[in-house]
């Protein structure tokens, strides 16, 4: 009995040692145009000198899941290596006519819409593989959006730690308190990915949350 429990303990220890050696898969989720790629770019540029993807005012600019391996984030003497995963914005509707407002040609708009729908499916499929997820919300928008609630509900069901980021905090219309009220069970960090505002608090929260990874 004692030998058996010792063997189990040893096995657990070995698996933990190897688990810690793997890079933490850090996913960026949220609605379109919330600033997921802007935030991922800011982090990647600060620690690797390279960006992860392109940014645009047109919704669904990110239509494929994008990765950046071996991003070593250093904060207050601590260091952790992440695999950054930037995902297409999740929504329940995609209308090619929306893109026409941004002077995108009809043919291109239709192809963009098709790619966007495939990107959303891909985003959802990736939920299972994440170690830690940052939900990026636009703090100028209403946070009571069913898609946000659905994504968080799925992460909770999968026991994946969640951090909520209220992006665009530099804008006058930003209402970070509203996001805090909408998700009282989660830590909400107000940031500006565009100007790199309050990223220290963000890194601190990520490091703290990474201890909860199972």
């Amino acid at each position, binding site marked *: 009995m004692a030998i058996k429990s010792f063997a189990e303990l040893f096995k657990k220890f070995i698996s933990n040692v190897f688990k810690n050696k793997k890079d933490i898969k850090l996913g960026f989720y949220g609605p379109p145009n919330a600033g997921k790629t802007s935030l991922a770019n800011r982090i990647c540029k600060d620690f690797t000198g390279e960006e992860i993807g392109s940014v645009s005012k047109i919704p669904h600019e990110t239509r494929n899941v994008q990765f950046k391996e071996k991003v070593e984030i250093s904060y207050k003497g601590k260091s952790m290596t992440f695999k950054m995963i930037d995902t297409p914005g999740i929504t329940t*509707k*995609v209308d090619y006519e929306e893109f026409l407002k941004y002077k995108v040609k009809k043919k291109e708009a239709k192809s963009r819409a098709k790619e966007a729908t*495939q990107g959303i499916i891909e985003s*959802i499929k990736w939920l299972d593989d994440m170690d830690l997820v940052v939900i990026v919300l636009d703090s100028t928008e209403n946070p009571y959006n*069913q898609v946000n609630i659905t994504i968080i509900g*799925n992460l*909770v069901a999968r026991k994946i730690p969640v951090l909520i980021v209220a992006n665009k905090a530099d804008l006058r219309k930003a209402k970070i308190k509203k996001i805090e009220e909408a998700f009282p069970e989660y830590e909400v960090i107000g940031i500006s990915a565009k100007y790199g505002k309050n990223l220290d608090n963000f890194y601190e929260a990520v490091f703290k949350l990474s201890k909860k990874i199972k």
Partner: protein
Amino acid sequence: MAKKIVKKKSKTKKINGFAIQFMPYSEIKNAGSTERIRKILDIAFTNSILILQGRLKPEEETRLIEDTMAMIGHVKSFKGIELAVISPHENQSPIEKFKYKIATKLSGADLGAITIIGPATIVREIKQDPRKIELLLTK
């Protein structure tokens, strides 16, 4: 008299061709996830707004989004859906929440919740806060 009626009609904005369907939870209680989502999407394809008693599981909600995306471009003039859930436990105290969770476990579903699903061609936006849901329809 008749002239007056015509005048009134011309001032009213018309919304063509949609219905509102209410579905009790018993309708989907014994159905599997695939069947539930198929039933919901079939209603959305017929330009109807569905008011469903209860709510789907989180994994069913993501599956609904996935299947919706897969159908855009394959079903004529289908652009997706608008989705909202309102649940009474959002504004409850921790004790009330605990009681509600037990009741939900016993009944096997969150029967106090209401799910609204409408095709995006009809429902432009659903404004949601913890106390109410507001449907903004396409003109």
